[in-house]
């Protein structure tokens, strides 16, 4: 069952343009000029119940704008959105009971109150009986390991602790869909990992559908089974993670350390990425050549060490961004 259906969604922003310097400022005051920026153009997709889906794309691609339209914050110019059978522009308040949002760059907690008071507050906002809220807080406190700072005012928390509380605050009312807009921005790797594990567990335990945007590819790789890549307001790819890897991972990287210098010539399908002293780095296009072909080019007797790896997902994604730009 689809929980989110988006059809031909579009949104443009009117942005004032100003020429250089003081002269430009005066000019734009007398006769303002506007630029219409099409942030989202004709996007269509749907999300199934219990899915974990990632929206990725370069800055300004329109991913946040799309999320903000699905949550009812922004009004679309055209197209149709259906979230849990509701229209976000018309049934905003009703929808609010069903969804949760975390915007990594904004704050929703009351900074002078403790996380505990905050959670009680959000419970009351969603009309949840007090005893149920208490129970929920206990549950979350264990799951998100909040014991240490549950009674410390939010303003004294570290960023990692605060984000954890932000997520919990968005979960108090057990939303059916959770929108996470860059939830791991600015966090250290350990905390990032923790948050990922939590998101995963939530998805498993409560069957929460999760829509995520992030610039961190490992967020996506570790969490989501499906990715939608957006660039310049359009969907350039909507596929499963597996397919993405399968189709784009037909290149391997070979790192070798040799006893003596080898002079290698490039052949079709094998590119030399680095050749420094006794170290070599080759990229093998598996459509054209096999790994064995590449190794045969080297004298295996002189080999000290070898490492064969996939092309990092990050590179694949930037490759796709670039393709999208060419089109």
């Amino acid at each position, binding site marked *: 069952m689809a929980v989110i259906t988006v059809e031909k969604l579009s949104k443009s922003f009117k942005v004032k343009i100003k020429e250089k310097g003081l002269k430009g400022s005066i000019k734009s005051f007398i006769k303002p000029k506007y630029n219409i920026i099409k942030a989202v153009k004709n996007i269509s997709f749907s999300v199934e119940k219990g899915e974990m889906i990632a929206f990725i794309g370069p800055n300004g691609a329109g991913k946040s704008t799309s999320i*903000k339209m699905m949550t*009812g*914050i922004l009004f679309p110019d055209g197209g149709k959105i259906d979230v849990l059978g509701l229209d976000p522009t018309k049934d905003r308040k009703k929808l*609010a009971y069903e969804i949760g949002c975390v915007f990594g760059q904004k704050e929703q907690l009351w900074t002078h109150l403790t996380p505990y*008071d905050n959670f009680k507050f959000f419970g*009351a906002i*969603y*009309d949840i009986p007090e005893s149920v809220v208490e129970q929920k807080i206990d549950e979350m406190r264990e799951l998100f390991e909040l014991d240490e700072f549950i009674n410390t005012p939010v303003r004294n928390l570290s960023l990692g602790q605060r984000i954890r509380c932000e997520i919990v605050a968005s979960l108090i009312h057990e939303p059916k869909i959770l929108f996470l807009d860059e939830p791991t921005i600015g966090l250290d790797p350990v905390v990032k990992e923790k948050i990922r594990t939590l998101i995963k567990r939530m998805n498993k335990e409560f069957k929460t559908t999760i829509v995520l945007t992030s610039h961190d590819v490992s967020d996506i790789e570790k969490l989501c089974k499906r990715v939608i890549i957006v660039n310049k307001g359009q969907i350039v790819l909507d596929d499963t993670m597996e397919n993405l890897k399968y189709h784009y991972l037909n290149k391997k990287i070979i790192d070798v350390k040799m006893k003596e210098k080898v002079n290698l010539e490039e052949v079709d399908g094998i590119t030399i990425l680095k050749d420094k002293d006794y170290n070599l780095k080759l990229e093998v296009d598996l459509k054209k050549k096999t790994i064995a072909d590449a190794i045969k080019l080297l004298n295996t007797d002189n080999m000290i060490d070898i490492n064969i790896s996939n092309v990092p997902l990050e590179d694949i994604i930037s490759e796709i961004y670039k393709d999208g730009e060419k089109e």
Partner: protein
Amino acid sequence: MKKYLYIFKSELMTNLQYIFDILIGFISYCIMIFIFLNLWNYIYSDPSEVIKGYTMNQMIWYVIVTEILWMSLGSRKLNRKICNDVRSGNITYNITKPYNYVEYILFSHLGVTTLKFVMVTILGLGIGLIYLKSIPTLSFVKVIGVLLSCLFATIINILLITALGLFSFFIEDASPLFWLYSKAILVVGTIFPIEFFPAFLQPIMKYSPIYAVSYAPAKLFVDFSYPKLLEAFIIQGIYLIVAFLLTHWIYRKGVKKLNVNGG
């Protein structure tokens, strides 16, 4: 309704951590009252003189009450909060919550005002009693009537300032609108009673927000009568409804124009 009371309570809890800030605000209240004490002392040649229907004591009590209302309102903080919420896009979180932003602001700001009101009222009454050694006669009905009128005045004020702040949806900087409003209230409504203005202006002022947000409660305090109470409640009631509808209307129009770029 319960959720709005909770919003009120949370804001009150936050502000209880800032008692010290309110105490600092006391200084400026004392300075204001001191200036007016001297001014009216100078104007009234003799304390029993009556100018425009006010004795000197009534005049000073009038200023004490209007200043209590204005000081406890925290209007600048409210205006700044709304302009910021809209401009920085912080309003996004409020939109995804099952409450209405206007009512959220109203109840949370009442949380700010309530605490200040209680403290400044104690200070104001103290100054008045020490200096004037008398207080306008009080009765149970009068105290309740004046307090209710103060509450209505504060709600109308919050709603109108919110409406002005929400203009940030349409123009880049809405603070000049607030500046105009606050100066008008300060000069015309707080310092001098309506009776001090030219006769042709008085009917206009009587039906302007100035009557509803500062004149009515102060006048009731210094010169109470049942017809005045009724009149105050009717005009304030109408203003409450108008301000409520107007603010909601501006919000509904504005939120469609919201631009949140980046992040």
